[in-house]
């Protein structure tokens, strides 16, 4: 590897989020939610919010960085970055973009944030309402292929067919999120446990996805603050050092009309090797994993493509006991994730990865040194990142 790396140069100093709400139920407008999450992250970091000098987000977040800077009375804005792409695939990339700015001296204190108020704005899981449609969607929408779930179900169906993956493997992923949410008072599904029988009896949304294979849609905001590694050491919390962050997709992944050569894929095949190369770690070193569940089938393929198990072992690996904190082989989505904590477009997963390093998750895994996040699978460009404790440096 050459000398160009983010490894260990930047750390998360603070995290913050609003109350998480069911979609359309936030009492505050989206911009105010964003401000609240950013201020909480600054308070958590012990940093005066006026010191923030950059913003990074993804999925065309509507909360403009110049408006944020003016509203917060920020002295000087030095970095404003939007990761291209229309979904949660950019969550770890936004962290990487912010970290790149901090590591190279473009900025000193960059906030990564995401805010959603779907009562104020449109929901994701609805089809287009236009009278006519053109481009790639013209080959899809007239056939009733419109929502993200419908767009991705055929990838998962083919993957399950190719490798003999059973529905129980998807169920285990849903069980892990709901199990962990029961310990998390922030979680929208806290107090709403899920049994295997509940899962099996739940209605199909689009085969192979039951209701509980699909993420929620929520209102709220989340934010984290990145500073240079040396500064993080002097701040109140144990730093979470960014060991690696990568983004991208493989060959002709977005070929129109579902013509991606590597079709049955979460789109991490080319991305994941770069993740481990920069981190100088392998999947066996990961203590705890947050993996974006737009749909459980995306988690299945994400885990395979990040090398946690070969596809032929999916049925054996993806069992609830292997995925539960604290003692499972690979504790997964320990806050409840997009299925059961909050669909904050996966930024809540980044916050949880930091909590696991700090040791204050509500489903804490003992002695976490390596805490990994995989952002939205299939939503290209995809991204993933790894945080480490000081011991990993």
């Amino acid at each position, binding site marked *: 590897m050459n000398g160009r790396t983010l490894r260990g140069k930047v750390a998360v100093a603070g995290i913050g989020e609003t109350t998480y709400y069911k979609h359309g139920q936030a009492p505050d407008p989206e911009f105010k939610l964003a401000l609240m999450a950013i201020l909480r992250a600054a308070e958590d970091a012990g940093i005066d919010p006026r010191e923030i000098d950059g913003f990074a987000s993804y999925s065309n977040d509507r909360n403009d960085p110049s408006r944020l800077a003016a509203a917060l009375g920020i002295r000087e804005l030095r970095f404003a970055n939007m990761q291209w792409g229309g979904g949660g695939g950019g969550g770890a990339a936004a962290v990487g973009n912010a970290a790149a700015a901090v590591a190279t001296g473009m900025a000193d204190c960059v906030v990564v944030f995401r805010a959603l108020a779907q009562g104020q704005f449109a929901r994701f*899981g*609805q*089809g*287009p*309402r*236009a*009278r*006519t*449609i*053109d*481009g*790639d*969607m*013209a*080959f*899809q*929408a*007239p*056939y*009733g*292929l*419109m*929502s993200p*779930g*419908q767009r991705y*179900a*055929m*990838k998962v*169906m*083919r993957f399950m*067919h190719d490798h003999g993956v059973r529905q129980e493997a998807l169920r285990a992923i849903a069980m892990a999120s709901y199990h962990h949410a029961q310990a998390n008072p922030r979680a929208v599904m806290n107090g709403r446990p899920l049994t295997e029988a509940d899962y099996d009896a739940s*209605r*199909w*949304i*689009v*085969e*192979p996805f039951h209701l509980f294979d699909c993420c929620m849609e929520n209102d709220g905001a989340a934010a984290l603050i990145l500073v240079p590694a040396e500064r993080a050491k002097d701040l109140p919390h144990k730093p979470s050092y960014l060991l690696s962050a990568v983004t991208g997709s493989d060959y*002709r992944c977005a*070929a*129109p*009309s*579902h*013509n991606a050569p590597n*079709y*049955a894929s979460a789109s991490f095949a080319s991305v994941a090797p770069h993740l481990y190369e920069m981190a100088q770690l392998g999947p066996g070193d990961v203590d705890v994993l947050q993996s974006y569940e737009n749909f459980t089938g995306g988690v299945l393929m994400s885990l395979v493509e990040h090398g946690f198990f070969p596809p032929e072992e999916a049925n054996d690996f993806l069992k609830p006991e292997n995925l539960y904190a604290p003692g499972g082989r690979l504790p997964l989505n320990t806050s409840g994730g997009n299925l059961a904590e909050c669909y904050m477009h996966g930024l809540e997963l980044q916050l949880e990865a930091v909590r696991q390093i700090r040791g204050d998750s509500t489903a804490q895994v003992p002695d976490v040194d390596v805490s990994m996040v995989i952002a939205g699978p299939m939503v290209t460009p995809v991204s993933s990142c790894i945080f480490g404790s000081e011991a990993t440096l």
Partner: protein
Amino acid sequence: MTAPHYLPEGLPIPVPENDGLSRPYWEGTRRGELWIQKCKDCGTWQWGPEWICHSCRSFEIEWLQVEGKGRIFSWERVWHPVHPALKEHGPYIVVLVELPAAGNVRMIGNLLGDPRQEVPIGAAVEAVFESHDDTDPPYTLVQWRRVDDS
């Protein structure tokens, strides 16, 4: 052959882009024909349409008529409606069909017949042209139905 409509009316009407990229396809379906792209220089089949060949980067792309015969590459059965036109309608089946005679390019359609039928990946299908003559503008969808595998 033509067919009655598989899904209710009211879904978005497909039209060519304002740069006309997919116009030969949509004009072909109105005649009951399936037209897709092939590179004149390197012979690579390409679908959906693009202005350049992804294999050799030639702009010399031609449209050729192909036989509407394929195999099911993947599928899904949709139960939850995400569009008002589909409320109270369901389930329905979407298939991804690959065309072995055209470089295994893939096309999306509905699988005609019982919406609760079993859908074997790899099964042979043929194109069925579904005309929507009373919309503005009129259009024709390419649908698929299972045929004898032999």
